[in-house]
């Protein structure tokens, strides 16, 4: 049974990832579709930020992640490099969990 899970999840994920490049790659999109695809990136990034910051298993969870991301957000605002942003966020969350 576990191999069934591995095969189905693996096969479906491979299809999900290939969907865009196989169906759309090598082709010019109509302008209206292109303008929607253009703002897909910020929409999905915002959704990833929210789920990974406060997402729990079917509930909003406020914990050290939120403090870390807020600290990271300040670093972004101060135009810190990406690596510094990540270290600030991680260190903040780790420190809060220590106490």
């Amino acid at each position, binding site marked *: 049974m576990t191999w069934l899970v591995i095969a*189905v*999840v693996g096969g479906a994920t491979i299809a999900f*990832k290939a969907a865009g490049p196989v*169906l759309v*790659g090598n082709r010019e999109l109509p302008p209206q579709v292109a303008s929607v695809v253009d703002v897909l*990136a910020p929409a999905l*990034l915002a*959704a990833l930020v*929210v789920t990974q910051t406060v997402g729990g298993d079917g509930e909003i969870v406020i914990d050290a*992640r939120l403090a870390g991301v807020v600290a990271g957000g300040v670093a972004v605002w101060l135009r810190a490099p990406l690596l510094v942003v990540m270290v600030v966020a991680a260190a903040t969350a780790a420190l809060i969990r220590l106490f």
Partner: protein
Amino acid sequence: MPLAVAPLLFGAAFGVLALDAGLGAEGAIAMSATTFGGSAQFAAATILEDGGGAAAAIVAALLLNARYVPLSLAVASIFRGSWRRRAVESQLIVDESWALAGRSGRFEYGVLIGVGLLFYVVWVGGTVLGTLIGDLLDPEGIGLDAAFPALFLALLAPYLRSRRALLTAIVAGAITLVLIPVAPPGVPIVAASVAALIGLRR
């Protein structure tokens, strides 16, 4: 390179969880090599470990990975060549390689392939290590679960100079926040892509 610490530690943590869940070392490594998506793998293994059954594990993992349809659509234009080649290269799309590839506001093929390959090797290698020697280090203990949303926030920031992208991001974030308590994990991200219809506004 320091980015690769995270997939190494999370990969090892998955290896440990997968052994507990009865996937076996071969199963754990096969799943990391084919699914190559942390959240879905953790969800499936956790459900199997809790005795939730194969169907529940499959549904949860597929909902979580359904986000790769809109993610791959957003980055589709950088893939060239035959459809076989595009299908193979698209497997290097993970949240991190996808987000970093778009950091200049325009997706870069070299970044997606480079970061994707690095993450793939380290993720599968981390899984192998986890099944052999157990947890390397607690990723949450060093705050790595806060580092990635912060990275995505940093990569979102340059887009926000455009009013339309700013509005899209706010609506997408709101949809996600509202749906997290009521929808199964994974669904909020897919639903948030509807916000991209704002792109149709003049």
